[in-house]
């Protein structure tokens, strides 16, 4: 009973299938310029309308052979036999072209041509290379996209985006988009042929499938045409959106981001710096490529067409049903109220009516439930009106330059002691970890922690779990300078009783100078910046109001504020005054959204109690550390 997922798979396959179409062969009936992600290709298709008859017996025989071949093409496609499909398809396509030249108005040939275009899986080289490379990485000879389910497809995309390795470094998202974009003109031409066919209510075409004749008519052409429109809408969306996450053609920054897992040091991480650029004011990420804006805005109309053609096909089925089985005996599906029919007339009408509602909702919006018993109106068509990306909907904020990250801003106090929550403590741990990483770059899962012995000395512990290794390093703080001495290093036994300094350090830790923002001299006394709750996050940036006035820093938000002599946490109610969204309707996508609904209903129901728990967790964490 997994028909839904199967249909989803089919939809995906259709999409994947269509992405494979190519115009490289230089069709006589389709002309256009080269496509790139920067611009859609204009397609001119010479479709002769109406349905011209084939008079010559030899040509009739040829078209029958073509139909048999096409059935084989579609069958082998259904089997997932890509190579065979390619072979059959390209051979068949050239014979259809010959017939179409002779009888440009013949609907059977037009249908065959449209079908051949759909089934033309002479894949784009870039996509093929891309898939092959991905497959090779996972030890497979070929990615079988056609039988993949949605989960696998998502995994594939995820792997590509997040986990890209050296093998595919030369393939950029924009390259993939260009490749997909090149399939659209083929699809356009198939749509043109199929539109002509579907608009002729007299035209039927008989295929021999499963030992019997199947008669295709408008009832079948129209849903296929609808599927083509959905495919075009999906491809257009995929191609239009700027998803360029590379940095000068490279994805090294993702590696850097991954390193956070075992180097845990934000201060030296380039990945974070690049990631923050995506939400910067000048970022083009998620905006619509200029040349694709018109096509992108046209997506709701494509979906309208898809809905209309499904209705068109069903309406035809209903009309046929009035005459019983007379004209639909061999149809792919039969509309009727008898036992020997697929779809009842009442259900067909019901689907037609519900599609009318869906079309209306597509443009005027509909209610969705965001929490139990609570709904909000969503207008999907507005999604396609915004071509500027997500940045303009993000809360007002400023991202600090990397040089500012070491200067704590908000949520801390100055202390003469080198306390555990001092930013410099974390900075020092990062320094030890970084140094170790240079000594042994292959090491993963490094954990560094420290505790103080007195106001200026203490120990840093460095543990590596696989293979197990532990170091105990004594630190000595002298003003804003820290020096290190090894007291223990063992690759197997975690015995920390030994406190006698090692004669020779296994790896050298250079002295560290604490940045001025974390350590300063105040009237002859050295003071350290100590976070109220947590010292992990650097000074990435701050939120502002619409006039650019700072409302609170990220560090301040995480640590709370000092009221008189008490540290006070931020409450959920405070958030709306700190994080200010320029437009809570998000460009009209949620037309009825107000500030109150957004914060009190929407955000609250999403984050629920997490916000308060965050502080509680922090407190527990602190207690644990102090007990240590």
């Amino acid at each position: 009973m997994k028909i839904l997922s199967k249909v989803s798979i089919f939809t995906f396959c259709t999409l994947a299938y269509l992405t494979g179409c190519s115009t490289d062969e230089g069709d006589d009936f389709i002309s256009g310029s080269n496509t790139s992600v920067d611009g859609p290709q204009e397609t001119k298709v010479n479709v002769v309308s109406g349905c011209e008859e084939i008079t010559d017996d030899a040509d009739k025989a040829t078209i029958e052979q073509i139909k048999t071949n096409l059935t084989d093409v579609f069958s082998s496609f259904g089997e997932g036999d890509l190579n065979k499909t390619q072979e059959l398809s390209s051979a068949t396509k050239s014979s259809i072209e010959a017939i179409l030249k002779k009888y440009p108005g013949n609907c059977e040939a037009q249908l065959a041509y449209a079908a051949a275009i759909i089934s033309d899986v002479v894949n784009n080289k870039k996509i093929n290379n891309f898939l092959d490379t991905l497959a090779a990485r996972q030890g497979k000879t070929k990615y079988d996209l056609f039988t993949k389910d949605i989960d696998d497809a998502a995994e594939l995309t995820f792997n590509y985006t997040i986990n890209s390795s050296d093998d595919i470094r030369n393939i950029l998202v924009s390259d993939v988009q260009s490749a997909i974009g090149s399939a659209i003109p083929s699809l356009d031409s198939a749509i043109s042929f199929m539109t002509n066919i579907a608009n002729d209510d007299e035209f039927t075409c008989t295929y021999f499938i499963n030992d019997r004749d199947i008669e295709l008519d408008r009832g079948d052409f129209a849903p296929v045409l609808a599927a083509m429109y959905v495919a075009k809408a999906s491809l257009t969306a995929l191609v239009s959106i700027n998803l360029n996450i590379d940095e000068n053609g490279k994805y090294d920054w993702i590696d850097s981001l991954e390193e956070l897992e075992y180097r845990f040091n934000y201060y030296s991480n380039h990945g974070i710096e690049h990631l923050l650029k995506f939400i910067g004011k000048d970022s083009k990420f998620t905006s619509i490529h200029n040349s694709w804006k018109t096509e992108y805005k046209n997506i709701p109309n494509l979906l309208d067409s898809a809905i209309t053609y499904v209705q068109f096909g069903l309406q035809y089925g209903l009309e046929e049903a009035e005459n019983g089985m007379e004209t639909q005996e061999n149809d792919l599906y039969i509309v009727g109220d008898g036992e020997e029919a697929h779809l009842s007339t009442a259900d067909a009408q019901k689907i037609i009516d519900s599609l009318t509602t869906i079309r209306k909702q597509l443009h005027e919006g509909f209610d969705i439930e965001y929490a139990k018993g609570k709904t909000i109106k969503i207008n999907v068509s507005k999604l396609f009106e915004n071509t500027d990306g997500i940045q303009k909907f993000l809360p007002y904020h400023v991202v600090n330059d990397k040089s500012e990250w070491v200067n704590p801003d908000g949520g801390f106090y100055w202390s003469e002691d080198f306390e555990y929550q001092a930013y410099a403590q974390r900075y020092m741990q990062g320094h030890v970890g970084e140094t170790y990483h240079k000594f042994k770059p292959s090491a993963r899962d490094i954990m560094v922690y420290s505790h103080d012995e007195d106001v200026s000395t203490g120990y840093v512990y460095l543990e590596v779990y696989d293979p197990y290794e532990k170091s105990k390093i004594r630190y000595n703080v002298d003003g804003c300078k820290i020096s290190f001495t090894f007291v223990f290093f063992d690759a197997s036994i975690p015995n920390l009783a030994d406190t006698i300094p090692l004669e020779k350090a296994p790896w050298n830790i250079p002295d560290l100078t604490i940045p001025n923002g974390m350590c300063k001299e105040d009237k002859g006394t050295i003071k350290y910046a100590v976070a109220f709750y947590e010292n992990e996050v650097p000074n990435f940036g701050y939120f502002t109001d619409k006039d650019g006035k700072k409302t609170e820093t990220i560090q301040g938000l995480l640590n709370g504020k000092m009221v008189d002599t008490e540290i006070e946490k931020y409450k959920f109610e405070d958030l709306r005054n700190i994080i200010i969204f320029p437009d809570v309707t998000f460009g009209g996508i949620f037309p009825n959204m107000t500030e109150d609904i957004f914060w009190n209903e929407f955000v609250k129901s999403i984050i629920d109690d997490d916000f308060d728990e965050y502080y509680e967790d922090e407190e527990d964490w602190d207690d644990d550390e102090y007990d240590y």
Partner: protein
Amino acid sequence: MNAIFKSLCAIGLTSFLATSLAYGEVSTKGLAQCGGLFLLDTDSKDLSGTFCHVNDSVSAGKYTVFAGLSNYRIDGLWNDGWTLSLNSNRTIGSAGIQAYFRYISLSVKASSQPSLASNITAHTRDSSFYASATFERGNPELATISWESENDSDEVHFIEARWETEYLRKGFAIGARIAGNDVDAHLEQIRTAPQNVHREYYIKDSSRVWFWDSRIAHRFERSRLELYYAGLYANANIFGNTYRDNSIKRFMYIPLEANLHYGDIRWEHQLFGLQARGLKADIRMEKNNKRFFETFAPNRLLPASLTQTLSFSFLQRNYRVDADLDLSAITLGGHFSPQFDITRHTKITPRIDIHGYYTYDDVSVDKASETTSFIGFKSENESWSWMLESYGIIAGLGVSVERATQGILRNLSLFATATQLIPLKTDFIERGKSEKQESSAPETPEQTSPDENKNAGLESGKIFRNGFGAHLGFSIQF
């Protein structure tokens, strides 16, 4: 249904009282019995049946009034990632009247099934020759079949289908008693007409069943020799349908054809008996390649939706199944039942049954999974077969106690039996292979992976080991 049953009980009781009052001199006979067959009880498969029956009859002169109450329950369960269960739990009340005249007897019986049966028998005055005709019509609910998927979020998670039928039974029997010989023969035909039930899922059938049997028995001075033969031919077309908004759609079609032959020779003595039995049966399901006669068409089972509608164009999947079941079994053995008088009027009769059995059964199933997507078609065939060969012993133990009429105490009898299968050797072989083919492709790529698994899980062995039968009864005669 309930009202009919109550009415019948009332009729039965009234008849009973009326007869007693009118004739004064009456005799009654009551019988209560229960039985059960518990074939299998494992985590994934379960099959059991029980029945209880109570009846009472009152005879006065030419008339006998009888009434009965039966309960039967059949439970089947098959769990394989989904759960398929069959339940039939029915309590049926019945009542009737028989009238004996010099050359003719009549009887009418009605039950809460509901059903109505009538019988007319013409016989000689001493009943040495008789011929009878039976006519019965009924409209029973046969079973409730339900299917439940493992995953709650499946598009169709639960299906419950009720199976009702309307039958017409016609029977003819002749018999004679000549010089210590009893001879009778009997022929019966049952036809069912499909019933459309206004439920979302339902099952209906159109069946034709022929049943015939004959018996020749000779009474010796202290024993009896009997030869019996029974045969059955059944042809059934079972349909699974949906009913929504006055529209009926078929999603299942199971055509079955069955043949059964059974023979029995027994020599019964008061103290012991010898018996040989033989059974040969085959049940066939032949796939029908016509449209709408697929064994299973899941697309048409789905509730109406855009997904379902589009699936007809892009992804239609149908299954057609051929199945063949051959059963043969013989048993040879006997029973020993000495009789002891424990008081002057009370007899106890223990009974030991020992029969050797041999059975050879063969099941083969071919399944074709067809997928039509626009102008593409692919078919995948899978075949399985199972063979079971077994011999062993069927052992039974029973006891009956009977008290003869004495004074105001009437004839009373009690009986109980239990039966167990004891397989001595069981061979179970399972084979499976699959092949893919495209209808229009000239060459058929075949992937055959025969998988032979002897004594695989001994599924059938489990049935035997776990299965037993029991029968308990009680009767009283006034």
